[in-house]
């Protein structure tokens, strides 16, 4: 068995657009296949991460995007797992190629979130919560994560100001990322002055509602070698797992699901947390970056909120990882079903040293991706990618 390679990547612009989901995919797949043979000459299967049919009243996104890529009579599936749909699609592609069953698979994600405005997105996202206790009580995505944040601030030394620093750091990274939705910096006071959405979380603690699509071509070593690409990265570890759907049933301050899947992915890759140079973790809200740094073993328990500090300023026991160099969900944007694929695009650019100079991490060899769906670890997927 050889490691699958990410041989090519593409993404649409992220943000509000007049383009529909399929159009956004057209942009992404056109970028990914620039200079390559036709997808139909290479691709054996396609998986599409997509959160909700309520935005565009469209399911069957596997079939639709296969067609838009010029593919017919290949396995094609929409993968659903709320915001983890993208990484679940990537995982399917990786497992197919690993097993030798397929030589090249497209892992995609697409979401047209702005179609129904804020109310539409609030309603569509609420479908990810347990219907019996959570949805009926009127919880929303920000309020679910606020329950985690409130408890985290209660149990640790973290403050709202610490969370604001995470937002500021991710805006700074996004300002250096041409793919980002918010290519502008902000400051701690602006974050702290923004309105509460669900206290202790404020507007600037929240990832935005985003339209976008992304594509990665996962291929065997042989197929990758046959393609006219300058570079590729290897997928060396995968982990995936579900935890309880209802937030109340879970540990609120230790994201067990993320800990489990990161450990699986490290074991498969034969690495430790300390080997990770860059990590894209699912910062749907600022507190998530702190929680996931701890769950993935990048930070000691109760210190994840230091993620915005320079590595030499963090508590002892932190690794020197660079977190969310893309700007994260917070500032790069969060097209829900596509986010896991957008994370992989950033890892590809970091590991092939093709990121813009202002955000490129020197000698980045190993990347960790953590993509969550539902609230926090209702379902979590981790990937470890390594420079080829």
């Amino acid at each position, binding site marked *: 068995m050889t490691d699958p390679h990410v041989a090519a990547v593409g993404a649409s612009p992220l943000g509000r657009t007049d383009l529909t989901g399929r159009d956004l995919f057209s942009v992404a797949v056109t970028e990914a296949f620039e200079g390559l043979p036709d997808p139909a000459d290479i691709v054996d299967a396609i998986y599409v991460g997509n959160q909700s049919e309520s935005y565009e009243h469209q399911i069957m996104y596997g079939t639709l995007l296969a067609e838009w890529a010029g593919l017919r009579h290949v396995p094609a599936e929409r993968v659903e797992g709320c915001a983890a749909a993208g990484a679940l699609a990537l995982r399917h592609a990786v497992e197919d190629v690993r097993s030798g069953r397929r030589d090249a698979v497209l892992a995609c994600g697409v979401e047209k979130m702005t179609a129904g405005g*804020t*109310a539409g997105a*609030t*309603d569509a996202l*609420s479908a990810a919560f347990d219907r*019996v*206790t*959570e949805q*009926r*009580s*009127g*919880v*929303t995505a*920000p*309020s679910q994560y*606020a*329950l*985690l*944040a*409130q*408890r985290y601030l*209660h149990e640790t030394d973290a403050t709202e100001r610490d969370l604001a620093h995470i937002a500021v750091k991710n805006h700074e990274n996004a300002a250096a990322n041409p793919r980002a939705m918010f290519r502008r910096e902000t400051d701690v006071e602006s974050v702290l002055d923004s*309105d*509460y*959405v*669900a*206290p*202790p*979380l404020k507007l600037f603690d929240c990832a935005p509602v985003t339209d976008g699509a992304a594509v990665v071509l996962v291929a065997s070593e042989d197929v990758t070698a046959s393609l006219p690409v300058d570079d590729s990265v290897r997928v060396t570890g995968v982990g995936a797992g579900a935890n*309880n759907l*209802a*937030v*109340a*049933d*879970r*540990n*609120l301050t230790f994201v*067990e699901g993320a800990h489990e899947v990161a450990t699986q992915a490290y074991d498969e890759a034969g690495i430790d947390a300390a080997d990770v140079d860059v990590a894209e973790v699912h910062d749907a809200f600022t507190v998530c970056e702190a929680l996931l740094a701890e769950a993935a073993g990048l930070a000691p328990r109760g210190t994840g909120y230091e993620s915005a500090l320079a590595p030499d300023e963090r508590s002892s026991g932190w690794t020197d990882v660079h977190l969310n160099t893309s700007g994260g969900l917070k500032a790069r944007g969060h097209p829900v079903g596509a986010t896991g694929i957008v994370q992989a695009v950033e890892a590809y650019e970091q590991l092939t040293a093709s990121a813009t100079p202002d955000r490129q991490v020197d000698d980045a060899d190993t990347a960790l991706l953590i993509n969550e769906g539902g609230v926090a670890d209702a379902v979590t997927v981790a990937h470890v990618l390594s420079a080829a």
Partner: protein
Amino acid sequence: MSDDTNTTDAGDSTDADTDASAPDEYATAPRAPEELTPDSPFTLPGFFDALADGRLLAAACDDCGTRLVPPRPACYDCGGRDLRIERQPETGEVVSYTEVRTPPPALADRAPYTIAIVELDSGARLTGRLTASYDDTEIGLPVELSVRELDADEREMALTYEREWPIHEFDPA
């Protein structure tokens, strides 16, 4: 793997529900498909029938002590299927809380409202609305469970089969 979420050593929850309205045939987890009728509290219609009578039911795991709300056929914590229906105590305390300021469209007129995760005295935890303002709430606040019929806006949000299902809330104790 087993953790201590939804469990307690105190064991001070009400005994297995022996009310006449919850026949014994439904008191333990289903082992045959025909047991899963709408009368069984291991299904949602049965769970909400009991809730409408003011009884919040959990499935208590004999193997690890976890309380599962609503009841279901297997314990997520240890994987066991030796479960008993158990009426939950109505008192508990706030574990975490927030305030919804941007509500789902159907509840627009109700916002802002307080949401809490409550741990009942049995160790069972569940999310619900809290009838206290955000400013009057804190972690550790003692609360009591209350159950009522849906208001008009909640009925609008409900699916047809959910309209007669009552809603649970928490009041400061």
